[in-house]
């Protein structure tokens, strides 16, 4: 009897060790690796969309607009900001930093772009906004309602924002985004693009999205 | 084998001697590793390939060793499925040779593609129309099969057999090996054929392009046939060489002869079909595309290639090995098998390099390709990888079941 139980004991220990190994490494793979693989950056300037949009009552098009040739301006360059901020407006710390560090030194702000696509992608804002009449929020989420810039979480290997690929993968997402404020809404992966294109019967030819 | 509980202890050379033997091949392997490093770090500009010769010596060697590795699946098929029991003596060795060939080929392919880190795209974004997709899938899957076939060999190791789980695993695998043999045969059949199809479907390349029945099933079967003819020849060569190097008898002499005879018969069938293919292609396919037969054979890719492939390394070894007295003589056996193997290398060379050398556009010229040392080093590395793995397998695994008995 004792011999048998000793054997069973041994087997049980073996199984336990096996399971322990499984759990530990699964956990490492699921939570620890994403934390290692991604790094978080602060935006250089504490920008508030709400302030500009609601309190100053600017329209979105003041900063984000189409150029004459139908290409998209994206994040405004310093000269757009300088239309108002050529001198310090208000007393906030962010404004002080912005004016002294960037406006006065005539230095472009190196914004981290959550939605920056890989360089092989040519995304046409025009086709999505003007032709398909998609709202900005469809892809970008309620960015316009942010009071502070969200942390920028970037993959160390690929140098892409996690939004571009990984927000669709809930496990990685939950390992990365620690609080709701850190979450950048939306996803920009190719699979998402393709899904929507197929659903709407839009061309999925390579050159439609790739350059 | 599964019934044997106690393996005899086999006599092996001393450790220093073995290490000395290994060290030569390891050096060669390291040279190849350096070449591979250069190709991966600096890019494929390190090779002699160019926009005309997009495939070089690596693909030639790939095709050749995959063809030669066919010995594994074919022997497996004959042994497990058709119950050719005489093959029991060397089925283990055949599996190891097959494993070496396939893993070596995949290793070489990884360096050959421009973006190895993206290599998995061919699975992830597979294009079902591409012959290459089929080849990649089948080769990879077949490598899995070979790995599984390899496992029982490992579990027969004396030390490993001490562990009950692994022993059981090995024994059970053995029981179902017939399934894997069948799967392997199926997969091999496909990709050996597809490798031919890879070039046969290139309608821009009049040298290898075949139409209609000439491509399917003709080219497919030509490739399969040539592979299963050459595979056993390589197995024979390897066994013979191992016997020579270890100075031990490993298999019954008649076994080798029977294997060689098999090879020769298949070779003859292949040659007949190949001749038919060539004649049809030279007289119908090529002229339809505005080419004369001689347009394809320009210096240095001259007519000697066809001669070598067909006569010297085709008919000659076939005849040698068909004569019982010749194949029972070690010298002629080796010559016959060696020529068979060289024939297939030459055939695969023509299919890759010469195919690309023939200009497609009328205002292009014949071009010549010569590989760089980096390319050769990796070829050498694959060969030394094979030697090392086979040496280790021979030393530590029980590759030849009758070894103890024959040297008893």
């Amino acid at each position: 009897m004792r011999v048998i139980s000793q054997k069973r004991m041994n087997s049980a220990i073996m199984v336990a060790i096996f399971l322990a190994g499984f759990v530990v490494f699964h956990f490492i793979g699921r939570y620890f690796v994403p934390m290692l693989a991604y790094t978080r950056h602060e935006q250089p300037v504490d920008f508030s969309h709400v302030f500009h949009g609601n309190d100053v009552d600017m329209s979105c098009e003041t900063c984000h607009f189409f150029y004459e040739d139908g290409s998209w301006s994206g994040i405004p360059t310093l000269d757009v900001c300088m239309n108002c901020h050529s001198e310090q407006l208000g007393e906030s710390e962010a404004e002080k930093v912005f004016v002294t560090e960037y406006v006065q030194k005539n230095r472009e702000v190196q914004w981290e772009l959550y939605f920056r696509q890989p360089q092989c992608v040519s995304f046409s804002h025009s086709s999505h906004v003007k032709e398909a009449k998609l709202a900005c929020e469809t892809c970008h989420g309620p960015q316009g309602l942010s009071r502070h810039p969200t942390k920028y979480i970037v993959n160390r290997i690929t140098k892409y924002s996690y939004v571009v690929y990984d927000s669709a993968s809930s496990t990685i997402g939950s390992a990365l985004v620690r609080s709701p404020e850190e979450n950048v809404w939306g996803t920009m992966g190719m699979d998402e693009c393709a899904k929507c294109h197929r659903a709407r019967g839009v061309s999925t030819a390579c050159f439609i999205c790739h350059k | 084998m599964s019934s044997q509980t106690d393996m005899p202890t086999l006599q092996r050379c001393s450790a220093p001697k073995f290490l000395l033997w290994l060290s030569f091949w390891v050096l060669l392997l390291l040279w190849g590793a350096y070449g591979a490093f250069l190709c991966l770090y600096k890019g494929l500009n390190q090779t002699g390939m160019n926009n005309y010769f997009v495939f070089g010596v690596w693909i030639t060697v790939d095709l050749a060793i995959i063809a030669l590795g066919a010995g594994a699946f074919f022997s497996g098929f004959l042994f497990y499925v058709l119950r050719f029991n005489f093959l029991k003596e060397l089925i283990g060795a055949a599996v190891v040779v097959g494993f070496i060939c396939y893993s070596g080929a995949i290793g070489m392919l990884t360096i050959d593609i421009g973006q190895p880190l993206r290599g998995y795209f061919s699975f992830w974004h597979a294009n079902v129309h591409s012959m290459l997709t089929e080849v990649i899938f089948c080769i990879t899957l077949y490598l899995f099969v070979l790995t599984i076939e390899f496992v029982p060999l490992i579990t027969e190791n004396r030390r490993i057999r001490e562990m009950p789980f692994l022993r059981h695993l090995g024994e059970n695998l053995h029981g179902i090996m017939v399934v894997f043999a069948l799967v392997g045969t199926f997969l091999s059949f496909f990709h050996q054929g597809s490798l031919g199809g890879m070039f046969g479907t290139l309608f821009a390349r009049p040298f290898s392009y075949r139409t209609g029945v000439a491509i399917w099933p003709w080219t497919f079967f030509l490739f399969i046939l040539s592979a299963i003819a050459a595979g056993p020849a390589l197995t024979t060569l390897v066994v013979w060489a191992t016997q020579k190097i270890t100075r031990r008898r490993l298999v019954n002499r008649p076994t080798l002869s029977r294997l060689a005879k098999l090879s020769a018969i298949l070779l003859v069938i292949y040659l007949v079909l190949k001749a038919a293919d060539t004649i049809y292609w030279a007289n119908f396919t090529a002229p339809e595309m505005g080419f004369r037969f001689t347009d394809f054979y320009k210096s240095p890719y001259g007519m000697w290639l066809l001669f070598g492939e067909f006569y010297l390394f085709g008919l000659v070894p076939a005849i040698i090995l068909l004569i019982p007295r010749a194949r029972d003589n070690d010298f002629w056996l080796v010559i016959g098998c060696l020529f068979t193997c060289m024939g297939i290398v030459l055939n695969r060379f023509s299919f890759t390099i010469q195919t690309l050398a023939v200009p497609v556009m009328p205002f292009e010229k014949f071009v010549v390709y010569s590989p760089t040392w980096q390319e050769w080093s990796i070829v050498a590395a694959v060969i030394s990888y094979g030697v090392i793995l086979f040496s280790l397998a021979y030393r530590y695994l029980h590759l030849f079941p009758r070894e103890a008995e024959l040297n008893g």
Partner: protein
Amino acid sequence: MKVDRRIFLKTLAFAGGGSLGFLSSPAPWHIVRDLARWTQNWPWVPVPPHGQPAYEKAICMMCDGGCGIKVRKVGPRMVRIDGDKDHPLNRGLICPHGTAALQTVYGPSRIRQPLKRTGTREKPDWKPVSWEQAIGEVAAKIQEIRAAGESHRIVCITNNCESTVNQLLERFLQAVGSKNLVRMNSGRDVRNVALKLMQGVDGDMAYDIENAKLIASFGCSLLEGWGTWGRLYRSYARTFADNPVQIIQVEPNLSITASKATQWVPIKPGTEGALALGIAHVLIRERLHDEDFVEKHCFGFEDWEDSSGKGHSGFKSHVLAQYAPQAVERITTVPAKEIEKLAFKFAENMPAVAVGGKGDGQLFTNVYELMAIHSLNALMGNINKTGGVFVKPEVPLTPLPPVVMDEEAARGYAVDRLDGAGSAAHPFSKSLPGNLKADEIRMLFVHDSNPYYAMPEQNTAHELFEKAPFIVALSCCMNESAARADLILPLNTGLEKWDDQIVAPDSPHPIYNLSRPLVEPLYDNKDAGGVLIEIAKTLGGTIAESFPWASMGEVLEMRVQGIHETGRGMIASPDAMAMLDRGLGPEGSLSQQYPSFASLWKKLLEDNCWFDPEPHHGPLQKALLTPSKKFEFYSQRLKDAFGFEEDAACMPHYEEASLNKDGFDLVIMAEDTLTMADDGKDTPPFLMKQLSDNVLKGNELFVRINPITALYHDLEEGDRVIVESPRGKVEVRLHLFEGVREGVVLIPLGFGHSAYDEFLRDKGVNANEVLEAKTDTITGLPIWWATPGKITKV
């Protein structure tokens, strides 16, 4: 033993579980995927940034053709150049050099700050210096020379373009006390001498090819860069139009122009003049010529008597006697029948122009050849006529104010030019850089030119750069001449600078191209004009007084006022082009459209080009300023200058080119290609990409010969050979081409640079090393297009 095994098994279990656990987590797959994405985003592969799109017009400065271009900008970067459809010269067509110009602007051979040489001239080392120091050194050197009373030994070699910068250079030298602004020669200079001799005009010939029905080109590489490329290509395109123009190409070898012309007339090298006279013979014999024009406006056609009563034979009897088609056939190898046909073709397709000047304008021929060709235009009465030949009209710019000169300046300026141009020996030439002598020079400026590489008189050029005591290079890139300077004052390139072009080559319209900076200067460089102004200011005194402006932009603004004052012409724009296409003149005068100068200036800055669709050439008399006030088949000026006794010496005639020399059985001819800039300028890498591998392979240059020549010399395709001439030898490889005339070795120009960047340096050999420059006794210009040679296998 037992414990060991346990531990081993436990470790194995843990490792097995761990591997399975890890593999079942997303991590390994994500790592594999991320590595693949890393390859798609390699940090060393550049990502061109987006930005605000803009298109701005500009002038192409890759050559002096003066084509209008349109530059695409993305934010602060220039990313593309296309032709400007609204420019009257090229109407949207530009050559590959223009298309690739950004490779030069952003190229590796640009100089980024003033440099002072520390090493030797052969092996220079460069030390960056500040602009203050560089200009200070130049000024100090000039002061020193002036103090020594040797200001007339200050020489400046510049390009052959008509521009305000060149006028400022001339002005600067005058203010300092020197006459020696020496322009690099071009084939145009020979044409100018022919014009001076036959029409008495100091100026340029202008061909109205837009309206001609036939263009008879005597060896001009019309499609390889002759004149304004865009303009010539428009003419070529007209050969396919419904009402086509015919291009007759007379040339020994099958050049691109020859292969694309309506008709190619293969001819023995150097006998083009004889063929022109042969055609003249048929025209006169058959009375196909414009008898009215010849009678009224020509001198020396019929036999005549001079004031002393001495009889002279006229052009008519000269040509009828000497240049019968059979005789010409013997000279040129062109069949007599063909000559007759050509003459009829020429006469039947009026208006037709005969144009001369070999190569793309960098090759130099004998002046009599050009006179012979030009006499065809006069015979047909095509002087000052639509579709014929004009004298290039002037652009009504405000002249620069008079130079203020101090005592030393006045003294130095009174001394004759060092190159002998305009002297009794060479009365008709403006500049003769080949006559410069290093030991007469105290200081040498080299502005925007590359004499060390490009001058036909290579011995002179090399001596200049070896021995001239102080060389200052004003250059935007490190060319061979700049590389041998003592001090480099780096210039902005065409798209970053203020500049202008006053004369577009060969166009009968006055055209003014204004070039303004499109982007901030990339480096610590300046405009040539700005540099001169700064040096003048540093020198002070009357020199500073002569340069009262603050910047080059200011100078140009001042000059353009002259255009505004005349009120003529129009600014190049879509509307202007539309009107031009409909054959309309400007709607109202310029001053009605732009009442204030500011409005005109603003528009000119946008559109870069002013031109006059009605050239206002005035009466024929204005184009005939010879002593006889007529077109002179017999040049009295030539007689006066050289006192030739023989009548033929003052008339167009054929002089055999001495291309035979003992021991040299072949003729080496220079080949102008479009791909290579042959005037010593930079050739962008994308043009090198276009070169066939039987022009350049590795660093080896190929010369081309006929397979029959090869057969005689026992040579084969690809052979390495030595091409040798009395001047020198080069090692090249052979390419056999049936389009090359038997006995000719064609060597392409523009290779063999020793400076510039790795994309151009050490590629092939410089054809100048074998081509011999002879001197034309009349013009003093080199005769430089062919030389006796031989070829031997290595």
